[in-house]
């Protein structure tokens, strides 16, 4: 039975959104949180009734997102990131250690009901890996010693306050990371003191079309990973439909190797808010959403607080922002899946066309932009498009956040102009640890580059394509020769198979089949034909999936197999 407090919170949520079903995901979290972190059928049914959706629908939602538990779970849910950046930083050892200490395998709960151990996907802590999430709290930069201490504390029933990790990143452009090291940077007073909200002041005196024109002129390309010019996307917005226009900030940050948006939201939330208010003015949106991945619970709180501060300070007279928490699904980073998720459904992508700019959230014209894109708007408006274009070069303009992780000495997020040489970035990150073997430069979903392929590589959209890879989200993962590529490939495809939404056959079967074939090879039972089959799947699944997730796994796996063929053939029995 839901407590009265929970019922009241849920009812309040259903009134906050334009449609009550949108409250479903948060309502289920509320119910779960007060029931020892899991949802049984009765609670799900009760929540379904208040929100007004069928029970079957609720079950579909519960079994789609990883953060809902429909079975009893331990008091402390130990979630260890073992995705690629974490593996490169030594997460495997941590995971094995915890498994030994607790005497359970991943996926199981200790007999006394205290601990459940799960290996999870990228938590966007790539620069501070290994990372363990216990319930809602991140513990970063974990070592065996620190893990021992953490477990000891938890066994006593105390969740220790996490150590704030040292920030190793840097900035040459000093725009998006301007306030990163400033004390109390999340406060509106500090933000204003450092020059914040001046851009908004200017924008409020501009016509919406003038704002849009400036953004278009800046030629800023979407910073989420697709690199589509934001100003052009804004231009597709359907006009005169009589329907409300929505602006959605994509803060799902799920691409492995990517932890840049987090820096903005966690340390400079007002920069994002200011960017959204200005953009909303350009688009005619009165309601905005920040769709933030569910694992970033404390960052969502920071955003909520910042929104309240901004409202109280009169900065949001024409825009309301709802901070909407996800519940664990990489595919919700795809804009139409994200929209489905806000509508209270399983976050599965829609067939395009129609595009969100024509028919998006609730069938209304909607623009979805990445955090970094929106956070760049204040600079573009305050200083002008011409100033923005001084960074980078034609079609690859502006400043960019690059997240560098893996086998480097100073992993962190670095802000440099578009087109910066890879060499320079690697130096800024303290150079490689160990012997450099390969790098994946654009988040996981781009072709891997061998050490001898890095010569002359510049970090921008067009240069990366010329170099046979992609800039993607700019998440750079450096790999040294301690790591086997087939093992990394297996871990990578495990990620995609886990995240595949299941909507279309080529992706859900393709990702799983590649996973099974790689496992067979790694177990020593594979044949040469299996390697050919993996490539055959990559070639034939690419381009025929409903959303780009198909490309996201076929492209990197193919590149790994082709470029490191000898390592795969060595596994053949």
């Amino acid at each position: 039975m839901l407590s009265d407090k929970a019922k009241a919170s849920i009812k309040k949520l259903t009134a906050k959104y334009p449609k009550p079903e949108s409250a479903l995901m948060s309502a289920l979290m509320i119910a779960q949180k007060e029931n020892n972190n899991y949802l049984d059928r009765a609670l799900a049914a009760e929540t379904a009734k208040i929100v007004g959706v069928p029970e079957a629908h609720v079950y579909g939602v519960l079994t789609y997102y990883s953060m809902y538990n429909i079975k009893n779970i331990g008091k402390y849910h130990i979630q260890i990131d073992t995705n690629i950046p974490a593996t490169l930083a030594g997460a495997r050892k941590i995971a094995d250690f915890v498994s030994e200490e607790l005497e359970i395998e991943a996926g199981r709960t200790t007999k006394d009901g205290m601990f459940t151990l799960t290996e999870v996907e990228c938590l966007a802590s790539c620069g501070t890996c290994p990372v363990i999430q216990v319930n809602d709290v991140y513990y970063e930069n974990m070592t065996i010693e620190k893990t021992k201490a953490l477990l000891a504390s938890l066994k006593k029933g105390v969740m220790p306050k996490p150590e704030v990790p040292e920030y190793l990143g840097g900035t040459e452009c000093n725009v998006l990371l301007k306030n990163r090291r400033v004390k109390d940077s999340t406060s509106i007073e500090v933000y204003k003191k450092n020059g914040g909200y001046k851009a908004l002041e200017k924008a409020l005196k501009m016509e919406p079309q003038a704002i849009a024109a400036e953004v278009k002129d800046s030629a800023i390309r979407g910073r989420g990973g697709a690199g589509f010019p934001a100003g052009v996307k804004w231009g597709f917005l359907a006009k005169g439909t009589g329907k409300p226009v929505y602006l959605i900030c994509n803060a799902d940050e799920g691409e492995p190797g990517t932890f840049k948006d987090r820096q903005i939201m966690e340390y400079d939330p007002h920069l994002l808010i200011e960017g959204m208010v200005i953009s909303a003015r350009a688009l005619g949106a009165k309601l905005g959403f920040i769709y933030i991945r569910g694992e970033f619970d404390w960052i969502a709180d920071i955003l909520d607080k910042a929104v309240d501060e901004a409202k109280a300070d009169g900065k949001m007279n024409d825009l309301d922002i709802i901070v909407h928490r996800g519940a664990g699904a990489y595919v919700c980073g795809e804009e139409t899946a994200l929209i489905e998720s806000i509508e209270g459904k399983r976050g599965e992508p829609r067939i395009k066309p129609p595009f969100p700019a024509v028919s998006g959230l609730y069938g209304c014209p909607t623009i979805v932009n990445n955090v970094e894109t929106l956070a760049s708007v204040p600079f573009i408006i305050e200083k002008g498009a011409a100033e923005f274009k001084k960074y980078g070069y034609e079609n690859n303009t502006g400043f960019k956040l690059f997240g560098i992780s893996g086998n480097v000495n100073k992993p962190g997020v670095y802000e440099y102009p578009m087109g910066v040489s890879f060499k320079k970035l690697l130096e800024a990150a303290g150079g490689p640890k160990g012997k450099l073997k390969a790098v994946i430069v654009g988040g996981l979903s781009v072709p891997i580059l061998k050490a001898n392929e890095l010569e002359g590589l510049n970090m921008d959209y067009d240069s990366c394509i010329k170099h046979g890879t992609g800039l993607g989200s700019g998440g750079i993962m450096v790999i040294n020769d301690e790591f086997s590529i087939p093992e990394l490939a297996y871990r990578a495809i495990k990620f995609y198979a886990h995240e595949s939404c299941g909507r279309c056959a080529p992706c859900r079967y393709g990702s799983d089949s590649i996973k099974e074939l790689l496992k067979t090879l790694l177990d020593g039972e594979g044949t040469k034909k299996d390697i050919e089959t993996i490539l055959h799947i990559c070639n034939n699944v690419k381009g025929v999936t409903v959303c780009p997730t198909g490309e996201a796994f076929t492209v990197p796996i193919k590149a790994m197999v082709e470029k490191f063929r000898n390592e795969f053939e060595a596994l053949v029995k």
Partner: protein
Amino acid sequence: MDKKVSLVIDGKKIETCACNTIVEAAKENGIYIPTLCYHPDLKPSGSCGICVVDIQGHRQPERACTTRVLEGMEITTNSKRLRDTRKLVLEMILADHDTDCPACLANGKCDLQDICDNLSVTTRSIPKKLKKLPIDDTSCAIQRDPNKCIACGRCIEVCSNIQTVNALTEVGRGHKVVISTAFDEGMGNSPCVNCGQCTVFCPTGALTEKSEIDLVWDAILDPTKHVVVQEAPAVRVALAEEFGMEKGLATPGKMYAALRRLGFDKVFDTNFTADLTIMEEGTELLSRATTGGTLPLITSCSPGWIKFAETFFPDLAKHVSTCKSPQQMLGTLIKTYYAKESGVDPKNIVSVSIMPCTAKKFEARRPEMNDSGYRDVDYVLTTREFVRMIKEAGIDFKNLPEEKADSLMGDYTGAATIFGATGGVMEAAVRSAFFLLTNENLPSPELKVLRGVTNDIVEATVEHPKLPFPIRVAVANGLGNARKILEKVKAQIAETGKSEYHFIEIMACPGGCVGGGGQPFGCEFVDRGIRGQGLYTEDDNRPLRYSHDNPMVAKIYKDFLGKPNSELAHKLLHTHYFERSQTDGKVVKETTHKH
């Protein structure tokens, strides 16, 4: 949209409506594009990816089922890449599919079999990895085998968007996705109303009816049992298509002949009790209309609709006619009236019905359906099961002679036979209600305004100088439309205390029973109309068109029941209703009482 566009598919120039997708445009022009999850009656999901085609200027292949045609498009439907992709996807689907074909009810009628055969999918490079999930046996009407599910989403589209029942959902993520019910409790423990539309649309054997073929054979082959059979009107227009004859042709004569050759001891016809229902329900309607009873009266012969009403509109229970369905009326009469007339001990009678319907399997098993003192209907076979039995017995259906049903409860009028089409019950009822009110027949028995398969509510007002008042009626086919009309009625009553309608016909299945959940596969909505038309043609050709003219109906009142709505008629031919939980479909309490 009337705007036309020109495009080229495989070098062939075609013209088509701008609103069409590539699949629709190709079909119109006799060009074949392979598909699997696509169904012309449903919104395309894009799930399988088999229909991918190449479009000039597009970087990647596009799904023909979801892509609208554009002026000047140049499309290629086949290439090495496209063929390789299609074969690979099918190979991957087969890798986790329980390819148990010889023992599967969909064997020979399976879209997956067809497409794999078509593309010669014979390579095996994907490791087999079966799901090994339990079969859902919880419903008496529908069986669900998740090991054969290809997650095409058709069943959810039907259940949620057309029927608005929402019993099914995708569960899990990625490779693990299957279709299931809330908390995997099973269809028997869900709001499923047993309409069976999911089984009609399912491309594989994942969703089928719960088979009673073996039970019926056991009864027929048991020399101590006297097996009596009845058949719904919609069955007789759905057999021709299964035996190489013209789709929609009514073949009642051959149907009776087949039943006798299968070994049934007595062959009655549900159409007899359809006529009887009109007398009972017509009398009920008039009584309510003239004594301030609850209006609108709503028909009660569709058990999918009844369970839907009990689950989602329990507060409208008093509006539902207390009449049982023709199936249940006949079942009761077989073990009382027929037993008396024939001298057969009812405890040795096995009462079987052949229905276009899966919900009838649930209706027969309702605990209260035992007014005869025994189970009124013991077993229900769908049309599909009946066809299987005919084939099993090696009967050459096409060349059977025309036989007659046993006339005691086998003779019927044209009004009865149109029950199987949406609007048919209403038309039959109006034909007799008019007579009961005016003592005359309508100028013409045909009320064409009520005919035709549309995805909407049909409304009509029957006016005539002899009528004491104009009769306002509505017809809803498919539960989505049922929901619409009921919300309207509720709103009208809430606002003014009454509704504009006197009588509403509701059928759970789009098209009415001719489109029932137990009917042969491969029937698009447009085909349902063809079967319905077969019934109207039969009606045209019958000597008697009005239920109140059926002499065997007059006889049963004279010799047994007394008169419509008599005490005995109420005991045997009327029923009562319940409220059901929207969580598990189980009875919560009674909403009306049997007197």
